[in-house]
């Protein structure tokens, strides 16, 4: 049987989620609990806090502390050309179709620190589409958005990024896209010239434009089924007919109410196309 101390902890987390919503406006009620519990415990471990009551005190009296908490609870881990086969498939199956539009609009939802965005921009650049594409890069977390705008990443990731870039069909010298500087690399800011960055909360905000392609990768896994459904409906409302949706490697449309109106373009890489 589940331990009663764990049951109590989880009940207290529900109270905490309500209080966070009241005080800060962030709504975590639709987040997958297993991950929320784990992230809260992890954060408490880092801050040396033993109980949720000890966490509550600084959390509600210190907004910087809360920012910190937010960073930790919403997982920001990302990398360039994550799942290279996904980007290869975008290049081969999606971009050639998008190239028939005079003007392309893309939404990168949950872009985190920008590695995915720069990967996408490089692809568009190489396929000659970047200067007629506008990308909306959004995330719940303002801090990662700021990092995404700067395009500065740790140099230690470059070997893995380079490998992934070629696996994703990269055609150039990868190093031509960035300049190195003391343990960091800065990607060419022309890549994000046509990108607008702004905070958007998938759990509470609504559709704000129409897109030819929406990428939302490794965000839905942190949501409950209900919230996943809300977000997928939001994407459905935000896609033009015949628009594309790219999800994370382990995320799917199959169980969702919108699936009937979508065809898989690449089943393994979770790329779907809206019918009408």
């Amino acid at each position, binding site marked *: *049987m589940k331990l009663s101390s764990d049951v109590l902890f989880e009940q207290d987390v529900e109270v905490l989620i309500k209080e966070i919503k009241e005080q800060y406006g962030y709504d975590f009620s639709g987040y997958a609990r*297993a991950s929320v519990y784990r992230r809260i415990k992890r954060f408490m471990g880092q801050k040396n806090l033993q109980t949720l009551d000890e966490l509550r005190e600084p959390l509600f009296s210190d907004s910087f502390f809360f920012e910190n908490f937010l960073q930790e609870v919403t*997982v920001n881990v990302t990398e360039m050309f994550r799942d290279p086969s996904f980007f290869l498939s975008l290049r081969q199956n999606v971009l050639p179709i998008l190239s028939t539009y005079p003007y392309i609009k893309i939404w990168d939802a949950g872009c985190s620190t920008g590695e995915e965005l720069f990967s996408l921009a490089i692809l568009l650049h190489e396929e000659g589409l970047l200067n007629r594409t506008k990308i909306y890069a959004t995330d719940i977390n303002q801090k990662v958005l700021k990092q995404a705008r700067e395009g500065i990443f740790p140099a230690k990731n470059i070997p893995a990024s380079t490998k992934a870039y070629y696996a994703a069909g990269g055609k150039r010298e990868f190093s031509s896209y960035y300049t190195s500087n003391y343990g960091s690399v800065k990607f060419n800011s022309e890549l994000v010239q046509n990108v607008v960055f702004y905070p958007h909360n998938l759990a509470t905000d609504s559709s704000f434009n129409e897109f030819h392609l929406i990428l939302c990768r490794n965000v839905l896994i942190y949501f409950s*089924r209900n919230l996943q459904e809300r977000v997928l409906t939001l994407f459905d409302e935000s896609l033009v007919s015949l628009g594309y949706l790219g999800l994370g490697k*382990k995320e799917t449309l199959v169980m969702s109410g919108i699936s009937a109106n979508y065809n898989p373009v690449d089943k393994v890489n979770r790329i779907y196309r809206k019918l009408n």
Partner: protein
Amino acid sequence: MHVQPKIVVIGGSWGGVKASLQLLEDLPANYSLPVVLVLHRLRNQEGQLQELFDLKLRLKAVEIEDKDILQSGYLYLAPPNYHVLLENDQSFALDDSELENYSRPAIDVTFKSAADVYGDQVIGIVLSGASEDGSSGLNYIFGKGGTVIVQEPREAEIETMPLAAIKATPGCRVMRLTEIKAFLQSLHVN
């Protein structure tokens, strides 16, 4: 045994594929407990493991998808590059957060999550491997009253992981694969 177990979670690394195949090969297709297997894998390596297990075992082997519901008769394989968590409603939740013990999936993550959900009704098994992953998770299961088993290090292809697990939880049961196998079979209820 007083408590009826609800789930078997197994962790392995180097040598873990072979050991787990041997361990699970005779379990019946309708084995009454869901079995979750976390093996360290090479990054960006795709599905072959699932095919191998599905071919060799009577259990149905699947690679876990986000929100899959746990069912008996299934072997659930942790997918590459994701941690595997369990929810109270007996479904899986995937997580792509930081590596733990240099690994994603990490055995500790799944062991701890299983113990949070199932308390003393978890059976945790650590197999061969060149890592210390699994030992703190096994200890966590032990702390919640679950059953903890470690493959006899002398029999393991690499003894590092079993030795680390035994060190972390001296109260664990150290067993040979054939014994663990017999134990798992004894839990099957028709």
